[in-house]
């Protein structure tokens, strides 16, 4: 088991004929990811890496049975591409490009909720279930199948943590990159709850970051989880972030510093880690 993607996922690529689309389709296939096809309007009938290209997502779903999509398109096209996928019945969409306009992501999130679809990103390095599927731009070098799940915003942190888990023999069930954009398709609490439902995942490492609003929201979920959670938060010593007017403070409350976030996560039952090397030590103590 794993979360969101595994060897049975039928994955399509939106923007498969573009430079990044082509390059990463090849990489993902080399990893053994089950890519079934892709879309590029006006290029239906062509092939990329031996996989069929369609004009629309609906055609791709009909022709290949795709249930998951990875988007490699410039930011300004992401809104329509994601909504097209969601409405065509795709259940999981990974938005790799960065700088997606905020108003666009609000709409994508609303559609996703309405159609029961999960969206990751924008600006995510992707998601990997080691040995089964690698969606996005993560290099496979750090990952090995195992029993700990990870969720973080940044790609570089995901590599470091997976590398630590792999080296210490724990390995990973699934590693999820939420993405670095200010507004994200999925949040920590949602991904943590998926790990909680997964039998194979014996512990989860979550890495938050200064400046986000989603860490605090994870606390309630963590307090309900049986699966232990190890938490790191980047930016403990970073200068305080900028607030956005009075309205920002009224709506989002006082923006938590990284230290406050980590304290809140700990109070909810997460085990705080300072450095990567702390992680295997904590896992060992918990007898994971």
């Amino acid at each position, binding site marked *: 088991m794993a979360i969101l993607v595994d060897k049975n996922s039928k994955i399509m690529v939106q923007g498969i004929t573009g430079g990044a689309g082509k390059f990463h389709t090849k990489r993902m296939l080399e990893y053994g990811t089950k890519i079934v096809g892709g879309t590029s309007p006006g290029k239906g009938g062509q092939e990329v890496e031996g996989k069929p290209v369609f004009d629309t997502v609906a055609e791709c779903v009909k022709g290949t049975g795709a249930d998951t999509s990875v988007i490699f398109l410039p930011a300004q096209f992401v809104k329509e591409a994601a909504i097209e996928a969601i409405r065509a019945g795709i259940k999981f969409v990974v938005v790799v490009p960065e700088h997606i306009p905020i108003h666009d992501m609000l709409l994508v999130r609303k559609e996703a909720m309405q159609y029961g679809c999960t969206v990751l990103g924008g600006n995510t390095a992707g998601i990997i279930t080691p040995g089964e599927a690698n969606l996005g731009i993560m*290099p496979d070098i750090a990952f090995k199948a195992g029993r700990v799940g990870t969720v973080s915003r940044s790609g*570089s942190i995901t590599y470091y943590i997976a*590398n630590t888990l792999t080296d210490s023999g724990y390995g990973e069930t699934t590693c999820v990159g939420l993405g670095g954009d200010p507004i994200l398709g999925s949040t920590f609490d949602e991904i943590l709850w998926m790990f909680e439902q997964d039998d194979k995942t014996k512990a989860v490492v979550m890495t938050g970051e200064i400046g986000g609003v*989603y860490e605090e929201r994870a606390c309630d979920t963590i307090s309900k989880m049986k699966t232990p959670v190890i938490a790191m938060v980047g930016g403990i010593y970073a200068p305080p972030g900028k607030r956005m007017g*009075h309205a920002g403070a009224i*709506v989002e409350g006082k923006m938590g510093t990284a230290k406050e976030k980590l304290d809140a996560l700990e109070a909810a039952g997460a085990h705080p880690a300072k450095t*990567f*090397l702390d992680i295997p030590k904590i896992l060992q103590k918990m007898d994971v």
Partner: protein
Amino acid sequence: MRLYEFEGKKLFADFKIPVPEGKIATSPAKAEAIAKELNKPLVLKSQVLTGGRGKAGGIKAVENPADAKKIAEDLFKLKIKGYSVEKILIEPKLDIRQEIYLGVTIDRVNYKLVVIASAEGGVDIEETAEKSPEKVTRRSFDIDAALYTFNAIDISKSIGLPSESVKSAASIIINLFKLFKAYDAKLAEINPLVITNDGELIAADSRISLDDDAVFRHPDLAAMGIEKRHEEGEMTSREQQAKEWGIPYLDLDGNIGMFPGGAGFGIMGNDFIHYYGGKPANFMDSGGGPTPERLTKMLVLLDDNPNVKAIFGARFGGISRCDDFAKGVIMFLKDHGLSKPMVCRMTGNMWQEGVRMFAEAKKENPELFKRFEFHGIETPIEEISRRAVELASEAEGGK
């Protein structure tokens, strides 16, 4: 990107939100001319991209238009939180009966737009929201939902506006919401929205922040003279240089130059340095797959910074390969030269090749490498952090 008050008011006027009849002065002489022309009690408002300008003395009332020149001279000399005053907005002074707060922003946790209103506007609105939440109305809307007249009237009534003001307030709420959506705003605030003694509603201030990532959709902004700019904050010369080179960079007050990979570890690597007793001199993000030229520039920023006593480098080769990283560092060593001690670790994609390239280049030219220690996967990043702190403190001690 944040707009100046006068730019925000231009947008307000476009959306039929009443604003005072104001003019911009770029010099004391211009201020004098405008004051003569308006010939009534005035307010001179420094235009800066930061809050708290009232408290900093950046807003002055002028009862006698003849005094405008002298007061403008003083304002142009001001520095408000490090910002110099280059423009002054001159407006007729309003007869204020009541100050209302009105704002639209994004609730990122619940993925909604939120309209906020309070009958007690002004600089203490946040305190009011915290201590007396019942005095602040909030209404959430989906991004694709309309804000109807009945919604706006409900909001106006909920803050206890008198009946004769309800219709004008509702129309301002609707138009502010329209403006927010039309320009991809993150924040649109009128604080205060003034009710004058004559019962008129007028936007006495504006605060608008637009989504940088959506500015491409609004070419009309450039036509209005509103150029793309940073959210807030004055840049140091190094930050300015980094911005020109397209490198996300911030100066901090420590002595260890940080040369990390992506933004995620860029932030966390700074924490690691603190854990081992050091202080970073900067934050930097290489971006995905930096070219050797970009890596060279990143290192130049650090090596030329006199505050930097040692450099910490970390690269987890993802899509960007460690051999490309090594190429960039070697290019820097040859073209610019390293004047500070530096410790660096590579792991991930092609790290062995990176280490091999360093070893080979060192054999060719040991002099270039005399201040440079490089490591591969065998040394944990924690140890590299510790070593960087040690190198910096040795360098400080050796002064």
